[in-house]
């Protein structure tokens, strides 16, 4: 009760003051009455009563302290004061809050993604006991990129599981893939689901419980092909079936198999892969039967859980020997493995990683870019803080008289600093709130930027307590960052000097210069980074792919029969192709087993007659005739594929120039033969044509050798269509024609080839986009800071400038005065910024393309833009200085 009344009194101190005064007045009146009754005059009685009472003010203060929560009261007082102050100078308040909220919002938005993708533990019990397994990837001769392989084959999984014994349990989680599914009968609509194969104990190991029904157990995952059961995610169940409990027992048709739904996972569990939301889980035994005995078929990740007493290191000691023996067996199985690869395989070391945050393909691609982007956002925050700090400084100049007055009246320096810091906190609190809203709005948009149609990225982007805490921490830190120095400075005014009219403005200006210098340095770093990323992107756009993607639409087509012969399947494909080719407005068509630049590839060793298999595996790509003309890739010699090529022996192959140069050096390759192995057999090829070089899956690596072979019949294939028609029209045509062909032929995905190519540089687009925007933002903030300080410095020097003008200084000289000031400010910051950005650029190096760390073009552009902005910021103050009328300036004092 007591703290409550003290809280209440702190909130309404006026009421308490009145009450205290009333009570004491009552006492005095009664005493005075008593005295008059004993014969004193009213005047005397009043005086005497007062005398006997003692120091009323002091006593009232004592009572006040007892009866209210004085700290809270003074804090509230500070807040009221700060609020009034901000209301009084709205321009300052809006500028400060706006720049800060942009910075805080950017940081919060990016942090929320970084958190969701990389930091946040999976929503399962004791995530710190989870681990994932990986091994270093094999590198082909000539490729030195370090990468890691997380795929494991079923035989290896079984051996590792046996070796782990009771120290840990291992679960299978296949790579999620998007599949077509039907819920209900044959007539129902096809929908695309994210499907994952898991071992029977996977849910138990991860620690997931059901929301409905039951999840898999070991008994549900024993016989290959024998467990047509499915578990749905809570999210999918909720979204698609409106959380209908009658879902249990219903049937899901996926890839011609009927799965019975047995349960739904509990809310919040999206899988073990941040960036993906799994819709349906099926037992691993439902995967392709051949995969369970094939030691070379890696198709899933391993997520494990350690028991209480085992460390990751101890487990690794148990698993490594098994892993090594497994690789030895593999080396013996593949007789043609080149010696360089054999050596690598023998030396492979199993790796064991913390699995608390799951395993994520998204993370692999975007980990570094996201940290960089977060770093850039921190840079913006620094600039915004420095900017607000200099605004606060300028404002405290205007308020130095007020401060001096308050110090003269006995306010302590600490108390004043606290008051000013409260203002900063209030500013950052408002900015934090606005930033929070901004983050809520931008974070999903940002994720959208990183998403592809065929591979959507989705995060549990709940802007929850973790992110809120981050936002609050950033806001508070910012407030302390920008508020502390100006507050201390402002509270330290010398009242005598200030009230006399001159103040410690020199030191304030020094501090202002420091803040502006800081802004210049940070902003320059941002401009450098932005320029580097933009140049990289431009270089990537300028890469000659060797084909013209403009106007080409890539359609992924599915047919429903698996039992059909390859030849019949190929006939169906040709039917569709010919129908499309006959459409008005279609300029070219081609078939392929999958599209370029979508991540699929097939590589094999090339065996020239009488020579050992090639060291490197080369790219093979199966296409139909018309592929090169449709993509506008020039033929150098020889002929295109023709009907029947796919069943000829030896098969005709078309190679690109890089292949011809590598394997046949200067000789003419037409008519030459080579082979590749397929199982125990060898497939023979004869070279029918040579085409110019093209990029295959990435813009970063150019001129890889490629072998084009005739495409065989596939139940799922890609159709390239060149047409000036819009993608939508092409899609509608294709849908109609596919239906006309029949056999369940349908269009599954439609993407412009340009989009496919663009998808491979999403990272670079992200960095260039955000880097560019932040560079402009940083530049703007720095320009505001520069302008403010120059303007202030001109105002302060009005008298001096007036005297100079009166003594005959020309306008040019006065402008030079300001310019010197400007260059002194920018110069120091620029040098610091240059040093900083060159250091940072080395970290970025792997993200850049065609840009060196200290690229003169980048440095030059950045410096040029920066100086131009600085000059712009200086124009107005310089004009103002030049326009000073000596008469007015001197009379002012």
């Amino acid at each position, binding site marked *: *009760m007591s703290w409550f009344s003290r809280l209440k009194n702190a909130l309404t101190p006026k009421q308490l003051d009145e009450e205290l005064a009333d*009570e004491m007045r*009552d*006492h005095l009146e009664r005493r005075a009455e008593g005295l008059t009754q004993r014969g004193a005059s009213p005047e005397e009685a009043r005086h005497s009563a007062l005398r006997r*009472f*003692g120091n009323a003010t002091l006593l*009232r203060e004592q009572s006040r302290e007892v*009866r209210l929560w004085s700290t809270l009261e003074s804090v509230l007082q500070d807040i009221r004061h700060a609020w009034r102050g901000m209301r009084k100078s709205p321009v300052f308040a809006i500028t400060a809050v706006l720049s800060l909220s942009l910075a805080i919002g950017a940081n919060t938005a990016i942090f929320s993604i970084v958190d969701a993708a990389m930091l946040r533990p999976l929503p399962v019990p004791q995530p710190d006991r989870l681990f994932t397994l990986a091994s270093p990837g094999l590198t082909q001769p000539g490729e030195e990129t370090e990468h890691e392989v997380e795929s494991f084959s079923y035989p290896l999984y079984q051996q590792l599981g046996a070796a782990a014994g009771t120290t840990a349990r291992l679960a299978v989680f296949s790579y999620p893939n998007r599949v077509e599914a039907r819920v209900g009968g044959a007539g129902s609509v096809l929908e695309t689901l994210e499907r994952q194969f898991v071992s029977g104990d996977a849910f138990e190991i991860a620690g997931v419980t059901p929301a409905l029904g039951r999840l898999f157990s070991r008994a549900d995952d024993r016989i290959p092909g024998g467990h047509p059961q499915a578990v749905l995610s809570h999210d999918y169940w909720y979204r698609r079936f409106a959380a209908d409990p009658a879902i249990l027992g219903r049937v899901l048709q996926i890839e011609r198999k009927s799965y019975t739904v047995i349960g739904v996972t509990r809310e919040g569990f999206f899988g073990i892969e941040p960036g993906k939301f799994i819709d349906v889980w099926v037992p691993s035994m439902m995967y392709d039967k051949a995969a369970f005995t094939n030691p070379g078929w890696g198709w899933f990740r391993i997520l494990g859980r350690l028991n209480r007493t085992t460390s990751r290191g101890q487990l690794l000691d148990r698993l490594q020997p098994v892993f090594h023996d497994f690789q030895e067996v593999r080396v013996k199985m593949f007789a043609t493995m080149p010696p360089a690869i054999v050596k690598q395989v023998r030396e492979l070391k199993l790796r064991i990683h913390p699995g608390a945050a799951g395993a994520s393909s998204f993370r692999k691609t975007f980990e570094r870019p996201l940290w960089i982007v977060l770093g850039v956002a921190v840079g913006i925050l620094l600039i915004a803080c420095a900017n607000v700090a200099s605004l606060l400084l300028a404002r405290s100049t205007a308020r130095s008289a007020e401060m001096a007055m308050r110090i003269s009246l006995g306010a302590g320096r600490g108390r004043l600093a606290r008051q000013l810091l409260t203002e900063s906190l209030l500013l950052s609190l408002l900015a934090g709130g606005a930033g929070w809203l901004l983050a809520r709005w931008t974070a999903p948009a940002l994720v959208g930027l990183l998403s592809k149609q065929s591979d959507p990225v989705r995060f549990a982007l709940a802007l929850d307590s973790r992110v809120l805490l981050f936002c609050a921490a950033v806001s508070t830190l910012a407030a302390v960052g920008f508020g502390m120095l100006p507050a201390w400075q402002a509270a330290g005014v010398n009242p005598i000097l200030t009230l006399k009219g001159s103040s410690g403005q020199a030191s304030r200006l020094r501090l202002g210069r420091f803040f502006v210098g800081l802004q210049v340095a940070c902003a320059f770093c941002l401009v450098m980074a932005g320029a580097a990323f933009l140049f990289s992107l431009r270089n990537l756009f300028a890469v000659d792919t060797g084909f013209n993607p403009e106007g080409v639409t890539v359609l992924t087509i599915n047919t429903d029969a698996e039992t059909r012969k390859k030849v019949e399947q190929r006939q169906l494909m040709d039917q569709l192709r010919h129908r499309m080719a006959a459409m008005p407005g279609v300029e070219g068509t081609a078939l392929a087993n999958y599209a370029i630049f979508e991540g699929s590839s097939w590589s094999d060793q090339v065996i020239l007659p009488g020579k050992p298999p090639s060291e490197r595996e080369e790219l093979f790509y199966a296409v139909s005739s018309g592929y090169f003309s449709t993509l506008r890739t020039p033929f150098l010699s020889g002929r295109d594929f023709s009907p029947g090529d796919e069943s000829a022996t030896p098969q005709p192959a078309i190679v690109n120039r890089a292949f011809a140069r590598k394997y046949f050096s200067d000789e003419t390759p037409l008519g030459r033969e080579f082979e590749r192995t397929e199982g125990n057999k060898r497939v023979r090829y004869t070279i029918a044509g040579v085409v110019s070089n093209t990029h295959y899956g990435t813009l970063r690596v150019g001129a890889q050798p490629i072998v084009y072979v005739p495409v065989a019949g596939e139940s799922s294939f890609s159709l390239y269509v060149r047409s000036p028609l819009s993608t939508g029209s092409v899609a509608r045509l294709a849908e109609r024609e596919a239906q006309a062909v029949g056999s369940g032929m349908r269009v599954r995905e439609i993407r412009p080839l340009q989009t496919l190519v663009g998808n491979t540089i999403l990272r670079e687009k992200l960095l260039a986009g955000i880097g560019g925007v932040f560079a402009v933002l940083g530049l703007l903030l720095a320009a505001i800071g520069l302008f403010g300080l120059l303007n202030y410095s001109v105002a302060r020097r009005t008298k001096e400038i007036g005297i100079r003008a009166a003594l005959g200084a020309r306008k040019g000289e006065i402008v030079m005065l300001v310019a010197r000031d400007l260059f002194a400010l920018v110069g120091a910051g620029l040098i610091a910024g240059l040093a900083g950005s060159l250091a940072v650029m080395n970290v970025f190096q792997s993200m850049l393309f065609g840009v060196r760390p200290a690229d003169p073009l980048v440095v030059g552009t950045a410096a040029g833009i920066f100086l131009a902005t600085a000059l712009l910021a200086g124009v107005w103050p310089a004009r103002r200085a030049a326009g000073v009328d000596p008469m007015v300036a001197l009379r002012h004092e």
Partner: protein
Amino acid sequence: MAFKSAQTALDLLILTVVQRRGPLHGYGIALAIEELSEDALRVEEGSLYPALHRMEETGWISAEWKLTENNRRARIYRVTRAGKKQLEAETVRWTNYSAGVSRILRLA
């Protein structure tokens, strides 16, 4: 036994007065103390109030604005249950203490 003597003595005095003479306003308490101690305890009258407010915060006494004679408003104090307990405990302690002191004074 350590008393924060002056403060405790005043608290004890106030509690006793309010307990014996029923609900009282501040001036009434002052008069009663004056009368009881026959001016032996001369304190500034005003210092009564911080003491009253402190005891109110502690919960020994409670206060309420009430109308008194001639329609005047006054803040009337009364002893709470906690205050009564405190008074009993303090009285015992004080009696022991003063008995001890006077014994020392007699024997020394």
